[in-house]
């Protein structure tokens, strides 16, 4: 279907004339549509030198409309064509009115010699004045009041509640205004293809509403023109073209830029296209949105030529501008409601994340990420793992996707790093595997670090598109201008399923995602600030605890010593013989001793928390042997078996403190044991080994777990947390050999200092197992 040719297009070497040269199907995308060298033959055109109003070029049909052959007008003052009065008015008009690239009505020539009255319009461009002549179209019945018509139309458009209603109204109003048979509102999609979104038509015509037209049906040069002009008349599709004489401006050698000319000769591509649709006359207005071509208001007529006079076109032009502005307003209105809902939901999300101090709330909370932006799933990488809600790709797929996202240039934008796609697999082929959950992707980064994204997903929507003709071919059937001019041969309905595409992401949604990102970053930043504050507070508290521990060990102990002393001296006093009194004095002394040991534990605990760890590679077997020796005294209390079923591994830890962990756990295992044969087992579970119980806290699965298991008295489950509390004893203070109740608190602290976790399993009466992990990363 591609016609490769070595022959350069005709306009490459000579002034172009659409009448003489035409275009081919393959070069229509760079046809010089703005300099066609021809006018539509229902009107005439003169090109004037603005300084002296001398005629430089004339359309070849001036004899019919102005009564003088083009050749006879060249190099004459314009009065040769419009009379001295007309020349004076033109001169005054060009001197005072804003005519640059803006055709305005100057005056009308009365009917003469069988020629109807003519409207004379003029504009200037590229240093020439262009004067156009065409029939006024006035009838004896007089003129409708176009101002009143337009005013009424504008009032109606403002009542539209939805965009669809707005488009329907626009189509109706343009048909009323122009009197053409069919008015369609075309919308251009992001890929350039057009869709008929509203239609107003003569009842007997086939409906074209909902049809899609391939992008190639609207060549790029034509689109560019519609960014510059507001109305494009084609009153007679089958009409003749009249070439300019001469084709190039004799002063400059350049062709006339006819962009703004109502009479501009149409591309043969365009007229053949219309003929294929049996259109006999047309009128087209753009709908622009923020300077871009949003769509077209296309009016078709089927009952022969239909001239829409200047005055009506002026009304259409004005109305097209109003529609463009109002469309934007209507769209804004419709999006505003959604935008408000999005903002409200996102504010709730942020409040939640702030309250719960974590971004996981965005996924796990109510509402969550998919209650805001319309999506079927969302994912977030936070605190070392993926958090997912709704339908999302798998974690492995997310990993790979985030790798790919890392290199997207969109994220280099400092102001709005954001990536969106509604056919992800086109940009990222592996996405084809999960097209059913994520054909659409919207991603915003939370930091430059790997994987820190918020991702929204949309599923594939299998859309059925009704094409006006097969979009995949530009058939080359022999046309009226030969095989090189063969636009669409068939306008049969062509249905196609579109796969791998999600609904597109709306601008409001992209904006909301970008705003949410900023809000989340604020939360993250303020969280970091809060953590820094907390750390500062903690440092201060630690120093205060340090001071307190010191005070406890000295200032509290001194009076204790005094109390003990007096009680002791009283007891030695032989005159105190009352047994009860002596018992109380004994109690007093015992209490001071107990308080003394409590103070020692407190002091020790505060040191455990503060002193720096000296981590080194340690053979845990040595540590355990030393620990067994240190608690050896207790073994004397009864038959005791301490077993290490298999050699323990090496670990990176603080030798002294790690030994204290074992000593404390061992001595507890022996202390709280009423069995005639005390048994203790010290062992480990390697990362790859399956742990038979499910009590392992999260994050420990990949670490070696150490354990100390006894056949002691056991601990009821309700005390599992309490046992780690400072000075918390579960038994009378003199049972099981007494103690301050600081041992497990210190174990927990020591394990935490090694970035590990400690937990237990126990069956009362049967025994207890304490588990712990060591993940010491601390500097040696």
């Amino acid at each position, binding site marked *: 279907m591609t016609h490769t040719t070595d022959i350069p297009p005709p306009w490459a070497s000579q002034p172009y004339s659409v009448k003489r040269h035409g275009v081919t199907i393959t070069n229509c995308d760079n046809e010089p549509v703005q300099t066609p060298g021809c006018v539509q033959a229902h009107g005439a055109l003169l090109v004037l030198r603005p300084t002296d109003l001398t005629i430089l070029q004339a359309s070849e049909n001036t004899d019919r409309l102005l009564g003088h052959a083009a050749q006879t007008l060249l190099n004459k003052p314009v009065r040769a064509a419009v009379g001295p009065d007309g020349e004076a008015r033109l001169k005054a008009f060009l001197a005072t009115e804003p005519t640059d690239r803006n055709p305005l009505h100057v005056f009308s020539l009365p009917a003469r010699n069988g020629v109807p009255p003519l409207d004379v319009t003029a504009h200037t461009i590229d240093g020439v004045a262009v004067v156009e002549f065409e029939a006024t179209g006035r009838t004896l019945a007089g003129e409708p009041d176009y101002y009143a018509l337009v005013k009424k139309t504008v009032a109606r458009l403002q009542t539209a509640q939805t965009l669809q209603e707005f488009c329907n109204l626009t189509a109706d109003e343009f048909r009323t205004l122009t009197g053409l048979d069919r008015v369609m509102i075309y919308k251009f999609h992001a890929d350039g293809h057009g869709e008929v979104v509203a239609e107003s038509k003569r009842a007997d015509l086939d409906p074209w509403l909902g049809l899609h037209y391939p992008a190639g049906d609207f060549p790029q040069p034509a689109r560019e023109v519609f960014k510059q002009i507001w109305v494009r008349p084609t009153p007679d599709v089958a009409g003749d073209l009249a070439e300019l004489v001469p084709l190039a401006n004799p002063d400059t050698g350049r062709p006339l830029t006819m962009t703004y000319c109502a009479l501009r000769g149409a591309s043969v591509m365009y007229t053949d296209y219309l003929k294929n649709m049996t259109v006999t006359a047309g009128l087209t207005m753009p709908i622009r949105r923020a300077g871009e071509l949003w769509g077209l208001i296309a009016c078709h007529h089927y009952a022969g030529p239909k001239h829409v006079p200047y005055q009506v076109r002026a009304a259409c032009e004005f109305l097209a501008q109003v529609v463009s502005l109002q469309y934007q307003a209507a769209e804004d209105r419709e999006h505003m409601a959604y935008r408000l809902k999005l903002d409200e939901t996102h504010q709730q999300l942020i409040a939640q994340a702030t309250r719960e101090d974590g971004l996981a709330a965005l996924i796990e909370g109510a509402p969550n990420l998919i209650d805001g932006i319309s999506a079927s799933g969302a994912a977030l990488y936070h605190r070392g793992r993926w958090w997912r809600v709704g339908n999302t790709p798998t974690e492995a797929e997310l990993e790979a996707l985030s790798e790919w996202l890392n290199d997207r240039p969109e994220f280099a934008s400092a102001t709005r790093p954001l990536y969106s796609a509604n056919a992800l697999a086109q940009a990222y082929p592996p996405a084809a595997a999960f097209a059913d959950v994520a054909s659409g992707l919207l991603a915003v980064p939370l930091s430059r670090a790997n994987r820190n994204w918020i991702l929204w997903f949309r599923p594939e929507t299998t859309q059925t598109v009704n094409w006006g003709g097969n979009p995949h071919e530009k058939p080359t059937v022999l046309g009226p201008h030969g095989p090189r001019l063969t636009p669409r041969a068939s306008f049969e309905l062509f249905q196609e399923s579109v796969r791998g595409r999600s609904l597109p992401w709306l601008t409001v949604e992209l904006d909301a995602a970008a705003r949410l990102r900023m809000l989340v970053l604020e939360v993250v930043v303020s969280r970091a600030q809060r953590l820094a504050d907390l750390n500062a507070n903690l440092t201060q508290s630690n120093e205060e605890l340090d001071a307190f521990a*010191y005070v406890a*060990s*000295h*200032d509290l*102990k*001194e009076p*204790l*010593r*005094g109390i*003990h*002393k*007096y*009680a*002791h*001296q009283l007891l030695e006093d032989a005159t105190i013989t009352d047994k009860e009194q002596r018992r109380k004095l004994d109690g007093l*002394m015992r209490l*001071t*001793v107990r308080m*003394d040991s409590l103070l020692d534990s407190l002091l020790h605990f505060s040191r455990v928390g503060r002193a720096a760890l000296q981590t080194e590679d340690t053979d845990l077997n040595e540590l355990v042997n030393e620990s067994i020796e240190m608690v050896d005294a207790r073994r004397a209390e009864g038959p005791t078996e301490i077993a290490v079923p298999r050699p323990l591994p090496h670990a990176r830890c603080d030798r002294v403190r790690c030994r204290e962990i074992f000593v404390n756990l061992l001595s507890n295992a022996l202390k709280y044991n009423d069995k005639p044969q005390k048994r203790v087992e010290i062992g480990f579970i390697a990362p790859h080994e399956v742990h038979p119980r499910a009590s392992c806290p999260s994050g420990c699965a990949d670490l070696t777990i150490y354990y100390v298991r006894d056949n002691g008295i056991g601990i009821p489950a309700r005390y599992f947390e309490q046992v780690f509390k400072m000075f918390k004893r579960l038994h009378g203070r003199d049972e099981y050999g007494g103690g301050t109740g600081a041992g497990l608190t210190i174990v927990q602290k020591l394990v935490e200092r090694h970035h590990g976790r400690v937990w237990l399993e126990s069956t009362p009466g049967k025994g207890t197992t304490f588990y712990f992990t060591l993940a010491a990363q601390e500097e040696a």
Partner: protein
Amino acid sequence: MPPTKHATATLVVIEDSDEDFDTVQQAVKRAGITADVFRAATGVDGLTVLRAQASTGPTLVLMDLNTPGTDGREALAAIKSDPAFKSVPVVVLSTSGNQRDIGFCYAAGANAYHVKPVQYPQHLAVLVDVLTYWLSRVMLPAGEASRS
């Protein structure tokens, strides 16, 4: 070896606690030592008392590390940097078993460091041992002692 080398020892006790000072006195009695015992409640007072005894030359200084005012650490440093007293043995008695305190005292020239037990009998026993050792067993330099 005879129980006392000097008929009367001069003992300077820097101690703010009345109870602990009393325990010292009990220990002196228990050890069977004849000593003139001078007490200072603060480190500053301790230095004053020491200087007042300069002529006779104190035999032993017992000091609590955490006395009010001039901290025992400063008093210790002052004593040990004074040529007149630096050879007088100073025994630190402290509630603290903190390694930082222990290290500091020895570095500043303390001759011994003891932790005061909370239990009275043990406290008394420690003091008796200290006094017996320093006033009966140890040979001290002739300087000040010979002048008595």
